[in-house]
């Protein structure tokens, strides 16, 4: 393990509710969602001198169009941060948000910054295609057989994982059902309340009767994805989408969503200066590659690597936010690594809660921080996910 100059701490984290694609945030721009969480996370540290934020690092998986033009800088400006606060957008698809937190922490660890923000934003409502506004493949992908996996749709890679790791349709559906059950229970118990910063949507709509523009306001306060009426029978009826003889359905895949999350990090010096109590210490981050055609298995490489880096054993980790891109890959990862199902996504995962690609990492860090605040017995927590074109990422946090 490399020598650290100093530790980085998470002092605040928050997120928007996660809306379904074309749901509550259908008319909300991703840069506005980002500005909202930037304001909300900084508001959690009263007296914070915004000009002291050394950089705003924002993950986004499809950084173009409404979320293009370096959305990090635009979000920071829209949030009312001083002009002196810079911003950078980074992209590693589904781990972008987690990467932003890790990169922000690294800058503090290196002694280059005292206050940093790592965040993520994504609107899949405005980015209709999984490949952005313009799909433009490199012909080289198809001219060599070993590259063809780059062209595989994510669903197809999940089919490959299901096949390779023998994950049955029944198991996938049961897993999906449990994700909804846990998410609904968590919502009912108010467990997400502290981490969510409700969003006031203002929509300008044509009122054809009065011939005027009507401004409609409504609060989005809760995740929209979880379904209390999810049933095994209903899930079993869905048709496989990605393969003729497949097992991956819309029901056992993550939902397409809109959302943003932000995490405020500080050095020990800054904590002392502001007199804040940190929630957790950032322990480390790892990322690793796997074949693109089985991208979902990525955490199988990333998690052990992270444990080796940090010297923490798997059994010491009390809470794992494992992104459920697909039930097939989540189950394959859990079985391969022997993860304890009770500790994985105790409040549900992306199948129920949704998966706004580049925002998910930051959003799930916010969930983990909230869990650490609620449960004094929880020491180590992890956020991990698979990544398109074949990677896995994992980040580790320790309650302080």
């Amino acid at each position, binding site marked *: 393990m490399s020598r650290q100059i100093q530790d980085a701490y998470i002092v605040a984290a928050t997120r928007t509710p996660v809306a379904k694609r074309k749901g509550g945030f259908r008319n909300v721009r991703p840069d506005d969602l980002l500005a909202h969480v930037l304001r909300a996370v900084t508001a959690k540290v009263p007296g914070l001198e915004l000009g002291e934020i050394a950089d705003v690092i924002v993950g986004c998986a499809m950084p173009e169009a409404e979320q293009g033009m370096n959305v990090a800088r635009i979000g920071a400006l829209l949030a009312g941060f001083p002009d002196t606060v810079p911003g950078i957008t980074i992209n590693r698809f589904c781990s972008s948000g987690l990467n932003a937190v890790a990169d922000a922490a690294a800058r503090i660890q290196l002694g280059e910054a005292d206050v940093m923000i790592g965040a993520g934003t994504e609107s899949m409502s405005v980015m209709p295609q999984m490949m952005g506004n*313009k*799909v433009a*493949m490199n*012909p080289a992908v198809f001219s060599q057989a070993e590259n063809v996996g780059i*062209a*595989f749709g994510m669903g*197809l890679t999940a089919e490959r994982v299901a096949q390779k790791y023998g994950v049955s349709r029944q198991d996938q559906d049961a897993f999906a059902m449990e994700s909804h059950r846990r998410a609904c229970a968590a919502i009912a118990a108010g467990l997400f309340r502290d981490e969510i910063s409700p969003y006031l949507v203002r929509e300008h709509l044509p009122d054809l009767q009065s011939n005027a523009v009507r401004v409609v306001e409504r609060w989005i306060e809760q995740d929209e994805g979880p379904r209390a009426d999810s049933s095994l029978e209903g899930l079993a009826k869905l048709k496989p989408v*990605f393969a*003729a*003889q497949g097992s991956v359905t819309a029901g056992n895949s993550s939902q397409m969503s809109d959302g943003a999350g932000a995490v405020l990090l500080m050095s020990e010096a800054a904590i002392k200066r502001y007199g804040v109590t940190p929630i957790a210490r950032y322990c480390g981050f790892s990322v690793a590659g796997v074949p693109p055609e089985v991208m979902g298995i990525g955490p199988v490489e990333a998690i052990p690597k992270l444990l080796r880096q940090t010297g923490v054993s798997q059994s010491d980790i009390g809470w794992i936010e494992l992104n459920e891109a697909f039930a097939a890959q989540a189950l394959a990862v859990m079985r391969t690594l022997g993860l304890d199902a009770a500790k994985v996504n105790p409040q549900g995962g992306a199948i129920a809660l949704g998966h706004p690609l580049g925002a998910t990492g930051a959003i799930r860090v916010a969930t983990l921080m909230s869990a650490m605040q609620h449960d004094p017995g929880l020491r180590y927590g992890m956020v991990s996910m698979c990544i398109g074109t074949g990677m896995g990422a994992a980040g580790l946090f320790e309650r302080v």
Partner: protein
Amino acid sequence: MSNFIIRKVAILGAGVMGAQIAAHCANADVASILFDLPAKDGDPNGIAKRALDSLRKLEPSPLATTDRVQYIEPANYEQHIGRLSECDLIIEAIAEKMEWKLDLYRKVAPYIRPDAIFATNTSGLSINSLAEGCPASLRPRFCGVHFFNPPRYMSLVELIPCHGTQAKLLDELEEFLTTTLGKSVVRAPDNPNFLANRVGVFSILAVMHHTERMGLRFDEVDAITGTLIGRPKSATYRTADVVGLDTMAHAIKTMTDNLPHDPWAQHFSAPAWLHALVAKGALGQKTGAGLYRKEGKQIKVLDPHTLEYRDNGAVAPDELVEILKNKDVAKRFALLRASDHPHAQFLWAIFRDVFHYVAYQLVHIARNARDLDLAMRWGFGWQQGPFEIWQAAGWKTIAAAIQDDIVAGRSMSSAPLPPWVFDVDGVHTDQGSFDARNGTMQARSVLPVYQRQIFPEPVLGEKIDAGHTIWENEEVRMWSPNDDDGKHVPVLSFKSKMCAVGPVVLDGIIEAVKRAEHEYKGLVIWQPAAPFSVGANLKQIRPVLEAGDFAGLEAIVAKFQQMSQTLKYAQVPVIAAVNGMALGGGCEIVMHATRAVCALESYIGLVEVGVGLIPAGGGCKEFALRSAQAAARTATNDPMNWLQNIFQTIAMANVSKSARQAREMGLLREQDIVIMNPAELLYVARKTALGLAASSYRPALPPAGIAVAGRGGIATLEMMLVNMREGGMISAHDYRVSKAVATALCGGEVESGAVVSEQWLLDVERALFVDLLRTEETKARLIHMLEVGKPLRN
């Protein structure tokens, strides 16, 4: 002359018929308001809205494109009754209960504009009785318009006046129904079940009567009363299932209740099994069980005695098939009558009793024999009406045979044949068709709307002027009807089977365009009967393929391309007049014509991948070019925005389910014309050619340079293919064929944005086409299609 314009229609009653009539209005660009009762719970428009939802789901679709449903406004009588004043035509289509209808008439009458038409879609209630329930002021504008189910697809509409309906109004309505909605109108006197159902239901009763008398099974009867005798494939009992057994029972009851003095009245009762099925809700297709029931993959048939379902699978006896194969109708009937085979006797009996019935009733139920025969074709899908069959079989011989059977007590009724039967040699003549009231031959209607039908559907015995031939070869005929427009715009028709396109047709098109350029103002490609063309003539290609003569094959493709370019750059407008299928090469003719004029029921598609090939008669070229031109008008200049959809259309061999959908799919251009009545196709096509000629027509000049999507575009489309192949949705050969489509659409393996010529695009698609012909899989697909008539998945 003043124009008769219907801007908006109100449909009262959002049931199956009401909603589908509204849908057909939407297909015809006629806006409508669909009324029903206010829903008890929730949205007061709930009933009408639910009807609109189910329109989207019905198959075959009542809507030409699903988004047309937006032209139907849901409404309810409580909140929106005042909006009736917006409507020029009000069609009532509520349940067949006299009291309910009269109640409604009282309610809506005050809101109907004094110049609006009020019509009922009743299928059997007396129009005059309903008229009496209308306020006196409304009666001159009241009549029956009886659509057949499903209204988009069934051509017939019966127009039934009440005493006092204004004659002018009926003429105007007939014009609207014919041209605007594209229907075939027959005027019917006000009788129970009017005309088509009167004869059609009698025919079913006759079949039921003889089925029971001879102890035949339903599936046995269906095996011999379908296509074998020129009726729909669903024959008798399966048709009843499709129509709905409750509807059937209702139509029979109308006869029972209202025709007590009909000499056949004793037979006007529904059989016990029909009552039993209706009572238990087995109403046919809509409830999943009726006379037939699908059990897993098997279809079982009802045993009328036990009401249990049992195995079905009757086929027509060989002996009967042999008789019916006879081309000579007179001989066919002589053999039927002479045969001892019970099925032959059955068929003679059902024909005889229908002949007997229509002869007896003609004076009451139809203006003339032509109306009756056409009503049976358009309303029941018979290839010929009963009088036509009788006449073809020998009028006098059959008349004598019926007479013998009446005397011998074999017919269903002992009523004598009317005397006129013995006075004529047939009911259809050059002078017109028999009108039993006046004992004269009545000519066709001279309403102006019928001048738009240059070749109306003729009945047997009616002489049609086939025009004069200008030039012809073995597979095409260039000709002109003997009328004014014919002097300026000749017609080109194909003689090949299903209007398939082989080298001789290609030569013919090229020659015809040349002649039109020299001597005429334009040219119309039109076929006297659908289809427009099923595409390349595979039969003619087969020997060249089997000889391995790839140079010969390439020459055929090159000629196809030459034909397309000849059409596109013809110096006079060339109009493709399309009705029915225009597939593959047929679609490419449509794409390259100056304009297409298409009947609504045009089924257009580039289906080459089904036989392992790609469109190479300029089809791919044209889309590469059109996408480049469309992209050039946008900020991003990216042809892929257009190519992705068209690629999927071609790669999946999608065929449009209407002309309007073909436009949505990009197979028709914005400037192509969609009309509702196929009988008006030639008229509109020639007028379009003349209009273009009058606008000093010049073909577009060949584009100087076309920027193509190139390698990048191919790779992007290939990504889709990789996922489908790896997901087991397409075969390796599908992949290869579709990649060839992608390559042709993207202009070949060149850099994105590379500028090419039209000839380059043609060369690319031709080379890819010939490459595919060299593969065993494509060869197998072609041969399979020829031998089995269906695509082979390999």
